[in-house]
C-alpha cells in the first residue's frame, strides 16, 4: 500500500503523462492493488478497466454489455464485474492475467441487477437477480469452486434487490431492495411507481431467511447501494422516485449493534443539491467515515457514520464511483474521466488522473 505522499507523487506523474498523450498510461508489470470499473470509451464501447491506484492502466477488456458494480474474490486473483441491469452476464476477471476467465449467463427468464458479494471463504458468490415473469427478487448463489455453478436461489420477498454486502459477522447478507419493478420487454421503464416497497434487508446467507426488513420513510425512496463498517454499521443510499422538486433524506443508517435504523438528513441546501439521487456508497474499513456520491448534484458527501454528522462535501462534476481504501482514504471517479483521492480525514480532495474514458457508476478494489 502506498502512503499518501507516494500516492500523490505518483498522481502528479500520471497527470503529466495523461496530459501529454491523452491516453491511458501503462503501469507495466507492477502487481499492486487494483481498481476495477466498468467504463465506456469515447466511441461508446463498453469495457472493464483495471487501473492501479495512480490511475495507470493494467488492462482494458472489451465486453459486449455495459457493466455496473463488481466485487473482489478475497484471497484470489479474481474479481467479478456484473452487467448492468437488465444484464444477462457476470464476468469473472483474472486480475493477474488481465483477462476474462468466465462469463456466467443469467439463464432464460432471469437478469442480473449489477451487484454481488462473496462468502468469507471466497467460495460462494451471492448475486442479485430478477425473475422477471413474476418480478420476484432473488439472491442467487454460485459456487466458484465448481466452475461458478448456480447452486441456489433465495427469494428476498420483494422487488428489485440491488447492491448487497456481507455483514462482518460473516453470515448476514445486507441487501438494498430498490422496490422498482422492471421487465426486459420494457427496457428500464419503472412499472410500479405507486406501489413500490423498498427496504433494507438482512438475510441469512445459509438459510435464505429474512431476519430484518427496514422500510425507508417514503415508499418511493428506492434503496439501492450500501456499505458496512467492520463494526457493523450500515450506510445505504437512496434514489427518490417522487417529484423532482421534493427533497427527502437520501442516506439510511443501520447500527446492527443497537438494531437501530435511521435516516440522515443533510443541511437543506446541500440536501437539495443532491437532486434526490445517490450513486455509490463507500464505508471506510479503517475510520468512522463514509462517503456517498451524487452525480446529478456533482457532489461528494462525507459523513461520520458513528456520530451521523456531516464531515464535508466536495464538488466533483459527474461523480459516481466510490471506493474506500484499506488505509481509510477514498477514491471517487467521474464520468468526465477523472479519478480523485479523498484524504482519510475526509477534508482534502485531489485529482489523481484524468483519462479519456467515462468511469461508470461503481469502483471495485482488488488488494
Amino acid at each position, binding site marked *: 500500500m502506498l502512503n499518501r505522499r507516494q500516492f500523490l507523487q505518483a498522481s502528479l506523474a500520471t497527470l503529466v503523462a495523461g496530459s501529454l498523450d491523452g491516453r491511458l498510461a501503462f503501469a507495466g508489470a507492477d502487481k499492486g492493488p487494483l481498481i476495477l470499473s466498468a467504463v465506456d470509451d469515447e466511441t461508446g464501447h463498453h469495457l472493464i478497466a483495471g487501473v492501479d491506484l495512480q490511475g495507470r492502466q493494467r488492462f482494458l477488456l472489451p465486453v459486449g454489455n455495459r457493466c455496473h458494480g463488481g466485487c473482489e474474490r478475497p484471497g484470489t486473483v479474481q474479481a467479478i464485474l456484473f452487467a448492468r441491469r437488465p444484464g444477462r452476464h457476470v464476468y469473472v476477471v483474472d486480475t493477474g492475467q488481465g483477462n476474462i476467465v468466465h462469463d456466467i449467463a443469467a439463464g432464460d427468464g432471469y437478469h442480473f441487477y449489477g451487484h454481488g458479494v462473496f462468502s468469507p471463504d471466497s467460495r460462494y458468490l451471492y448475486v442479485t437477480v430478477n425473475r422477471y415473469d413474476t418480478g420476484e427478487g432473488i439472491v442467487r448463489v454460485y459456487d466458484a469452486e465448481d466452475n461458478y455453478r448456480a447452486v441456489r436461489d433465495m427469494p428476498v420477498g420483494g422487488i428489485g434487490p440491488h447492491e448487497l454486502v456481507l455483514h462482518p459477522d460473516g453470515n448476514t447478507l445486507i441487501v438494498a431492495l430498490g422496490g422498482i419493478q422492471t421487465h426486459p420487454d420494457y427496457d428500464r421503464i419503472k412499472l410500479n411507481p405507486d406501489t413500490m416497497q423498498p427496504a433494507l434487508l438482512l438475510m441469512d446467507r445459509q438459510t435464505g431467511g429474512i431476519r430484518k426488513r427496514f422500510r425507508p420513510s417514503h415508499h418511493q425512496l428506492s434503496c439501492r447501494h450500501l456499505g458496512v463498517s467492520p463494526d457493523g454499521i450500515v450506510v445505504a443510499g437512496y434514489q427518490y422516485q417522487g417529484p*423532482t422538486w421534493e427533497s427527502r433524506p437520501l442516506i439510511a443508517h443501520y447500527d446492527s449493534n443497537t438494531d437501530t435504523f435511521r435516516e440522515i438528513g443533510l443541511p437543506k441546501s446541500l440536501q437539495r443539491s443532491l437532486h434526490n439521487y445517490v450513486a455509490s456508497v463507500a464505508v471506510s474499513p479503517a475510520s468512522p467515515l463514509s462517503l456517498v456520491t451524487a*452525480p446529478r448534484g456533482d457532489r461528494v458527501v462525507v459523513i461520520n457514520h458513528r456520530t451521523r454528522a456531516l464531515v464535508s462535501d466536495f464538488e466533483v462534476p459527474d461523480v459516481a464511483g466510490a471506493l474506500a481504501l484499506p488505509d481509510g482514504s477514498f477514491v471517487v471517479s*467521474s464520468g468526465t474521466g477523472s479519478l480523485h483521492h479523498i484524504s482519510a480525514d475526509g477534508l482534502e480532495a485531489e485529482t489523481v488522473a484524468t483519462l479519456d474514458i467515462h468511469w461508470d457508476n461503481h469502483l471495485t478494489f482488488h488488494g
Partner: protein
Amino acid sequence: MSSLARSVRYLIPFAVSLATATVSAATSPRQQWHTDIGQGYQQLAGSAHDLEQAANSYCNTPSDNGRRQLESAWRAAFLNWQAARFVDFGPIEQDSRAWQLQFWPDHKNLVARKVRYALKRDKAVDADFVSQAGVALQGFPAIEYLLYDADMQSGERALPAERTCRLLQTVSHHLANTTDALASDWQAFGDYYRSMDEYTGKTVAAAINGLEILQDKRLAAPMGVRPPHKRNKYLGDAWRSETSVAAMRASIAGFQQYLVPGLTRLLNEAGKPELAGKLVEQTDSTLAKADSLPDAMAPNLETDEGYRQLQSLFIEVIQLEQVVEDRIAPALGITRGFNASDGD
C-alpha cells in the same frame, strides 16, 4: 456524428449560473422556458381532451365525419406531444409519463400485442385495466394502432366495434388525465425550476438530447444510414399513421417555439448575440426543410429523389444539433456528463 449510446446530461458551471441569476425573475431565461414549455403542455392537455371528446362522440354516434374528426384530433394531440417531447426533466419524469404518452421504440411490437390482448380477453376494458396494463397500452401509439393499423381496419374488431370503442375511449381518457397532471405539475414545478441554476444546463441538455434522438433514432435508423444500410420504415415512429415526418416537423417547430426564445435570451445575456442569431437562422432553415417534405416517410424511402430529400433533412438536423452542441454549449461552458442522467 455523435454517438448516441445513451442520453447524457450537461453540467453548467458556477460562473454561468451566476450570470443568469442576476437577471430578474420575470425575464430570466428559465422564466421564459418555464412559460413557453408550460404553454406547450397546456396545448397538449387541451388537445388530449379534444381527442377524448372526439372518441366519445364517434363511439356514441359513428359516422364518416366523426371518424375524420377523431383522426384529426389524434393527430393534433400527437403533434402537440412531439413539440414538447424534448423536455426530459421535471414532471415528465414522474410515473414514466414520457413512456405512458409514447411507448417507442417498440422493437417487440408490444403495442400491437397489448391492444390485441385487450380486445380478446373476457374481462372488462375499464380505467383500472388500462392503468394496470402497462405503458404500451396507455398512450398515442395504442390509439394509433386502433385507428390506422391495416389488420385492425379489416377485421371484425375494427372501429366502431363496441369493445374496440370502449378501449379507444378508456385509453383516450387515460391520456387526457396524464397530460392534465403533466400540465398542472409543471406549474407546481415552477418555483423549483426557476430557483435551481442547474436547470439552465439541464434544459439545454434536453434540447440536445431531443435533437440527437431525432437525428439518430427517428431519422438515421429508418433511413439505414448505418451498416447494414437497410431502409426500414418500421424503425421510425408513427409509421402506422404515416406521420413520421410530420412528427419530426412538429418536434423542430416545438424546439423553435419552446426552446429557442429562452436560449436566445441566455445567449444575449452572455454577450453572444451572434450565436443567438445563428441559432434562429439554423432553426428556421431546418424547419423549412422539414416543411417541404410530405408527412409520411415510407414513400420517400422508396425513391432516389425522395431519399435525397430525407438526406437533406438529416443534414439540416445535424447542423442544428451541431450549432447547439458544438457552438452554444461550449460558449456557455456547458460540458457533457455521463453518470448524471443514466445511472442505476
